[in-house]
């Protein structure tokens, strides 16, 4: 396992503006190798903007941002090669077979033919997928598809994998299984950067950050946050911080950028 101190994502005073609208307001955070980092926030809090910047899709307005050691202003190509991405909608092509999907994505990430078929074997074996190799994705049950989508997102062994609400609309059992594969991935040293709407899932993360109105208003381990906010669950913490207007106003300042 990698040293805990290796920083794979560094955001320092990250600002992103759209015209006069400030989507990301001076974000400061670091993510360590092999960590499961939960990125929470209500809709419109600015999470998506941050993920787009971190994955090289858009450029920050100001501030220092490094992903996998590369600069988010000029080295987006290298960033893209070193990250994986999976979103809520299944990122596999339904009219292609399991094998074809894997070959396609492997090819897009510049993997060699032999390496792709090697990974394909490993993967089929690990997921007990052998009989599905030549089946269309549309024939697979939802749970299997999702596992496969995740495996494909880390097929090229990226340093970081971004999971954008990966468990949206999935039943609890599948969600649990999915988190098992997230743990397994993190234990291999791949950093997992995950956004979610489910607060129970946030408890599974090593550390979480909570965004509100473009700012990071809390960042710590789930246990520490619960202690700080005197809450039994992250759900409670979230309600206390992210929706202060309806909950009286607990102090917001000074929490961002801890650690």
């Amino acid at each position, binding site marked *: 396992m990698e040293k805990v101190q290796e920083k794979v994502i560094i955001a320092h005073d990250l600002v992103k503006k759209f015209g006069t609208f400030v989507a990301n307001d001076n974000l400061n955070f670091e993510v360590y190798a092999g960590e499961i980092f939960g990125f929470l926030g209500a809709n419109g809090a600015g999470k998506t903007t941050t993920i787009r910047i971190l994955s090289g*899709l858009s450029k920050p307005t100001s501030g220092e941002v490094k992903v996998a050691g590369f600069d988010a202003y000029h080295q987006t190509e290298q960033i893209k090669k070193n990250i994986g991405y999976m979103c809520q909608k299944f990122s596999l092509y339904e009219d292609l077979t399991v094998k074809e999907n894997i070959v396609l994505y492997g090819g897009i*990430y510049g993997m060699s033919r032999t390496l792709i078929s090697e990974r394909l074997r490993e993967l089929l074996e690990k997921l007990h997928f052998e009989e599905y190799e030549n089946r269309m994705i549309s024939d697979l049950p939802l749970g299997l598809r999702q596992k496969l989508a995740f495996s494909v997102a880390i097929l090229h062994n990226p340093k970081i994998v971004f999971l954008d609400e990966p468990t949206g609309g999935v039943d609890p059992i599948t969600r649990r299984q999915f988190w098992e594969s997230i743990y397994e991935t993190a234990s291999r040293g791949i950093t997992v950067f995950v956004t979610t709407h489910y607060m129970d899932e946030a408890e599974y993360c090593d550390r979480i950050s909570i965004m509100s109105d473009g700012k990071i208003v809390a960042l710590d381990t789930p246990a520490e946050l619960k202690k700080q906010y005197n809450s039994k669950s992250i759900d409670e913490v979230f309600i206390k911080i992210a929706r202060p207007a309806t909950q009286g106003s607990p102090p917001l300042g000074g929490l961002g950028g801890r650690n």
Partner: protein
Amino acid sequence: MKRFLGFVKKEFLHIFRDYRTLFILFGIPAAQILIFGYAVSTDIKNAGVAFLDLSHDEVTQKLTDKIISSGFFKKTETLLNYNDIDKVFKKGKTKAVIIFEADFGKKLISEGKASLDIIADGSEPNTATLITNYTAAIVNDFTMSLAGSSLNNSVHISPEVKMFYNPELKSNFMFVPGVITLILILICALMTSVTITREKEFGTMEVLLVSPLRPVQIILGKVIPYFILSFINVLLILALSWLVFELPVKGSLILLLAECMLYILMSLSLGILISTVSKTMQQAIFISLIGLMLPTILLSGFIFPIENMPKIYDYISSILPPRYFIIIIKNIIIKGTGLFYIWKETLILIVMTLAFIGLSVRNFKIRLE
């Protein structure tokens, strides 16, 4: 490059796996050519005609033979009396009944005139008019040849109509350029806009954008298969119209194919532009069908001549690319003209293509920001 080829291959797989896409790509063009060529054709060929011969003499026999051997008609039945007429029409195959009065031959020789009735099926007015005209022409021709040397009594002078470019007035000649124009813009613009919005809708576009593939590669990868297939389509349509309708390409085939490529390119970039403004497949389909297909059929000069349109429609049609392409390929296929006469239209298409590409790139960038 290898990444890119894998991506192109995937797009071909999408197309070949989806029988609906395949049908739209190849089934519809073939069907359109055949439908416009045969069914909508304003020629008659082998129209069913029944005969009611009350005279049964040498003259009626000759005239009957002449009508049947003209190639326009085929004899369906020989009727015995007037009551059969209604029956034979109801069967559907007979479009007209030709009736020779009793003593037709005798009267013709003794009185110099005899009467012949043509009863046509009025439920198909176009065909009916055509059949009666054709038959009348054949009968006239016949009486003239009978009158032969003795130019005394019934010499009819019928106006001789002769057509340039399409001497037999074969209407399907006119349809082929129109069908090519319609099919290409429809397939290219509709299919590309749908295939790109499909990736957006399914969320795979996000994944592709995050991947090391460049946006240009993604778009090219999606468009190249359609470029190739559309080009094959052009060859198919030309081959079909040549084999079935014996339509020759009078001008340079190379020039024709080059112009088709330009037009395909224009339609593809239009499709990309549509995909940048639509969020869902439904939207893309709607814009393509309502925004492209209807104007192309109605306003491009495909069916209705632009010269006869009110000025306002003329102006609207002048921003439609198909209008120029129809002029280009009609010139090449039917008249056989060279680039010299169509450079203006070609230039307009090139400018439109560049404009569509420019707009798409701008839209795409805005979306990425």
